[in-house]
């Protein structure tokens, strides 16, 4: 079994490029060039330098001693929360801005839900002096005011998505519509391993730096490259794709994906796509998708805006369907408790997305000698309001 994209962008039966003809020239240009450009020495040099000097990589692989004691196993945290801008998202935006420059694009568009990808995109656009337009659901703009302000300070234009449910899925629709209307000078920086081929593969490759570092860091600390398990949360799934990437074809490494159950799988307020989704088409990709029996896309729910997406990337749909990945879901309450626990035990305030991955320790029993890596995808500063309200702080 193959777990990476084939040349047509399929992961098993998932993936492909289900796009209107208006997008074909842009997507095709990218498809024909992305691997070639990424393989160029000058690209690799600039990408790696920026990751080191600007993003602050490699991020530590931190042995969480007190958390390990509590759960009687060996837990390492991959500290993506220490990246510049506060999450793993910037690994991808650095890669894509360099790609856009080489494709001679002058204008950058992006979608954002919670605002993390929007901030990461606005950041690299400021760095490179490119125009930046970020689409964000009107409702998300209201509930993520600090990130809207960050994007504006970084020089981006934030455009409210007023269609549909006015959240992430609609912001993505608006970004795609912008790209249709601006077919020659614009690059669309998608923020996750979603969208038409080659996006899922390209974004996964940019994020794969996470698992590359885990391998060498674990070798140093444990004398082995492979942990017994890697745990990551999955919304669209970019941090998970990056954390799993180097281990996809290493069956002795267990792949554990954690989705947001929201208020509970059966409550109608959930984002657990692997449980609630069926195969369908969203944003140009054939994947698992939450939808009505008639094929209308439904609105997901999670306390964490970053997991609030009705689909998953096609790589994850394939990991789920093939059984290579073990999928779990964690409720709002379980995630919030796990987030607070990390604060108290390790002095780290995690993003609520990442708290979902941490909550797995209450649900799954690991062996004492197991070596487990949790991808701590982001820091919790952006979630302070949610933490304050939830815990009455």
């Amino acid at each position, binding site marked *: 079994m193959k777990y990476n994209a084939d040349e*047509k962008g399929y992961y098993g039966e998932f993936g*492909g*490029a*289900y*796009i*209107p*003809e*208006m997008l*074909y*020239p842009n997507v095709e240009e990218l498809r024909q060039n992305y691997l070639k450009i990424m393989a160029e020495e000058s690209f690799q040099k600039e990408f790696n330098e920026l990751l080191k000097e600007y993003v602050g990589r490699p991020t530590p692989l931190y042995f969480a001693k007190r958390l390990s004691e509590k759960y009687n196993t060996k837990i390492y945290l991959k500290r993506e929360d220490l990246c510049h801008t506060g999450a793993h998202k910037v690994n991808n935006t650095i890669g894509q801005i360099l790609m856009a420059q080489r494709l001679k694009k002058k204008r950058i568009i992006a979608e954002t839900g919670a605002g993390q990808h929007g901030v990461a995109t606005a950041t690299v656009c400021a760095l490179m002096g490119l125009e930046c337009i970020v689409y964000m659901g009107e409702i998300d703009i209201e509930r993520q005011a600090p990130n809207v302000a960050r994007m504006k300070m970084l020089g981006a234009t934030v455009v409210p998505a007023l*269609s*549909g449910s006015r959240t992430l*899925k*609609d912001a993505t*629709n608006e970004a*795609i*519509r912008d790209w*249709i*209307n*601006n*077919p*020659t000078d614009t690059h669309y920086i998608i923020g996750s391993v979603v969208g038409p081929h080659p996006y899922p593969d390209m974004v996964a490759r940019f994020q794969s730096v996470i698992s590359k570092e885990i391998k060498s860091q674990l070798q140093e600390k444990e004398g082995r490259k492979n942990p017994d398990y890697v745990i990551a949360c999955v919304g669209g799934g970019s941090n998970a794709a990056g954390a799993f990437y180097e281990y996809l074809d290493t069956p002795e490494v267990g792949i554990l994906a954690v989705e947001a159950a929201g208020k509970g799988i059966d409550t109608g307020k959930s984002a657990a796509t692997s449980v609630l989704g*069926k*195969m*369908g*088409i*969203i*944003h*140009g990709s054939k994947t698992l*998708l939450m*939808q009505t*029996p*008639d*094929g*209308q*896309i439904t609105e997901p729910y999670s306390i964490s805006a970053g997991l609030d997406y009705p689909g998953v990337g096609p790589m994850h749909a394939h990991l789920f369907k093939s059984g290579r990945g073990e999928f779990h879901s964690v409720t709002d309450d379980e995630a919030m408790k796990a987030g607070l626990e990390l604060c108290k035990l390790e002095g780290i305030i995690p993003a609520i997305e990442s708290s979902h991955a941490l909550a797995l320790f209450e649900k799954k029993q690991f062996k004492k000698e197991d070596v487990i890596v949790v991808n701590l995808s982001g820091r919790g500063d952006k979630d302070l309001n949610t933490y304050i309200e939830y815990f009455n702080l």
Partner: protein
Amino acid sequence: MNRIQQKLEQDKKLLSIYFSAGFPELNDTVSILEKLEANGVDMVEIGLPFSDPLADGPTIQQSSTQALKNGMTTQILFDQLENIRERVSIPLLIMGYFNPILQYGVEAFCKKCKESGIDGLIIPDLPLAEYEAHYKDIFDKYGLMNIFLITPQTSDDRIHQIDAASKGFIYMVSSASTTGSGSAFGNEQEEYFERIHKLKLKNPCIVGFGIKDANTFSMATKRASGAIIGSGFIKMLSKDGIEGIGPFVAAIR
């Protein structure tokens, strides 16, 4: 010969209308079709509403959303169309996004189309490669024409490829835009229309996007075989309702 081809053999510029099924009211579909035919419209694209129509501008997004709110589903549309061929004889196509069709079952959907007398399908997010690899045989089995789009950015090579794969006509998107963007036709469009004309394609071209009145209709059809009006028609329906169809069509030509 299918109704689309027969219609295209007539010596006139085709006027085709798009509307969202289930809008303004759930059960307006049949009466809209009858009125369009009675007023001399040559062909109709019946829009199957979708929650996330990413190639559409605000007007069709809103009519789709309203149609879904009214309760429109794929099955209800087929129920409405069950006896349509006793009432309407002009070519009818269904235009919609791929996901609802995938959920209905591509084969079941095509079978229903054939039974209802639908002549062709326009599915913007089902591109050539995916269609040919996975679905062409099913469309062919039920005698459905699958209509592909080209745009001003489509290369000549790809246009020839699309022409070779097409039956019926090619849907020529007038400009780089979502539907209903409403900018006037300028030199850019004229050059594009001329370029396509010179390619001497085997299929006729019908222009869509940006056509809203007699002027844009006549510009679009100078070189092409016909033109499609969507957002402009839906705006009229929102304002004047079904009674507005007669005057609207009369004003186009």
